């Protein structure tokens, strides 16, 4: 980094009531900031996406730059100060782009974040909803790598879901319906991303190929436990044996 002496701060070390270099018309800057504030409030009212982006975030950048340059006097500061701040920003950018693929995408080649998908599906409930519903949302950030052997990860988000009285239909819609579909047709929102496709409980082929024990085993230990798709997670850490029996009872109601 090169230092241009003429651009930089005063050479005096102590108080600096001597230099006239901060000759900014502060009132003018302040008025400009207020005008920009008004624009940034009115612009998004139009409801046009690109206008909102420019007026809300573009103007925020302009306002921040004006404050930083004119009020914080960064433009007169030595260059290494600017570099220190830029390096901090670069670390933030590194962090953002480093985790963005995992957090912003809800599925990938070999994984599905079904808590996030379910959360988008469900939307935001109005307040004073059922406690259980809110608790279920706490898990939305967890990426559920579905390798069949990650019971601990799977358990985290949803343990509170069953804190209230257990109900097999509720448990089914919370944990199974995302892929197996609300009516067991194997057509949930998460199904599109899966290969092989999730089982459909509405076909006779499915019921020809399973026993009650094998169903319990798959729910408890994941698809891989029965040589089936590893994308079927293990739910043993989430539901008790008795609860899994109830879920199987419920799944049987989809039988054609």
């Amino acid at each position, binding site marked *: 980094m090169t230092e241009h002496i003429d651009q930089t701060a005063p050479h005096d070390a102590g108080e600096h009531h001597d230099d006239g270099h901060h000759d900014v018309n502060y009132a003018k800057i302040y008025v400009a900031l207020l005008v920009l504030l008004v624009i940034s409030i009115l612009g998004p009212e139009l409801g046009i996406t690109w206008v909102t982006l420019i007026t809300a975030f573009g103007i925020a950048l302009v306002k921040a730059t004006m404050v930083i340059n004119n009020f*914080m006097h960064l433009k007169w*500061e*030595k260059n*290494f100060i600017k570099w220190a701040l830029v390096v901090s920003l670069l670390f933030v950018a590194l962090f953002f782009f480093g985790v963005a693929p995992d957090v*912003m995408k809800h599925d990938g080649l070999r994984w599905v974040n079904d808590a996030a998908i379910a959360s988008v599906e469900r*939307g935001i409930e109005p307040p004073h909803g059922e406690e259980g519903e809110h608790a279920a*949302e706490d898990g939305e950030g967890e990426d559920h790598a579905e390798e069949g052997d990650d019971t601990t990860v799977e358990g985290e988000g949803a343990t509170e879901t069953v804190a209230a009285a257990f109900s097999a239909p509720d448990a089914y819609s919370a944990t199974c319906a995302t892929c197996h579909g609300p009516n067991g047709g194997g057509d949930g929102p998460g199904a599109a991303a899966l290969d092989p496709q999730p089982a459909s409980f509405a076909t006779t082929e499915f019921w020809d190929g399973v026993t009650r024990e094998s169903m319990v085993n798959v729910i408890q230990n994941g698809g891989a436990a029965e040589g089936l798709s590893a994308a079927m997670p293990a739910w043993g850490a989430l539901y008790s044996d008795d609860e899994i029996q109830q879920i199987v009872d419920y799944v049987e109601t989809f039988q054609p």
Partner: protein
Amino acid sequence: MQKPIATTRSASGIPTGRLAIWWLLASEIVIFGGLLACYLLFRLGHPEWADAAAVTNTAIGATNTFVLLTSSFTAVLAHQAAERGDGKKAARFLVFTIIGACLFLGIKSYEWWYEISHGYTITSNGFWSFYYTAAGLHAAHVIAGAIAMGFVAKDAAQGKELQRVELVGIYWHFVDVVWIFLFPLLYIAK
């Protein structure tokens, strides 16, 4: 009067106190930047958060933006007065800035009280968790800044340590800049 070494030493070419403030802000960038980056990541991945963002009161957010911009203006006027050696005037402008900080916190308290009493709490869902965490961390900085300005103003009124008026001002403008970004992120973007 014995001055602290940070006041007079200038190994880097700028006063050490000011260097320290910039380092502080460099670390603050990572704290707030990391939090806001997380918010963006989740917000972009969760279109349904827009429903929650629509609940936040834009008028209150805008009023608080106005209050903070104004307090930044008085902070820089305090700095200008200190540069001209007018400690009393600098202290007076710092007091105005502190009043701005208190006004900001008062409005924020009302806003949170209203939202919490309507059932939007930090555990409601991801959006509200970020809302209270980001605005809360920011409010903590407002409180810290107001207290620091109180000490600086007390000295400045007696014509002492006038260089600190600029330092506390730089910090205060940073708090303002953070809010400039929080406002569209939490209030405007629907």
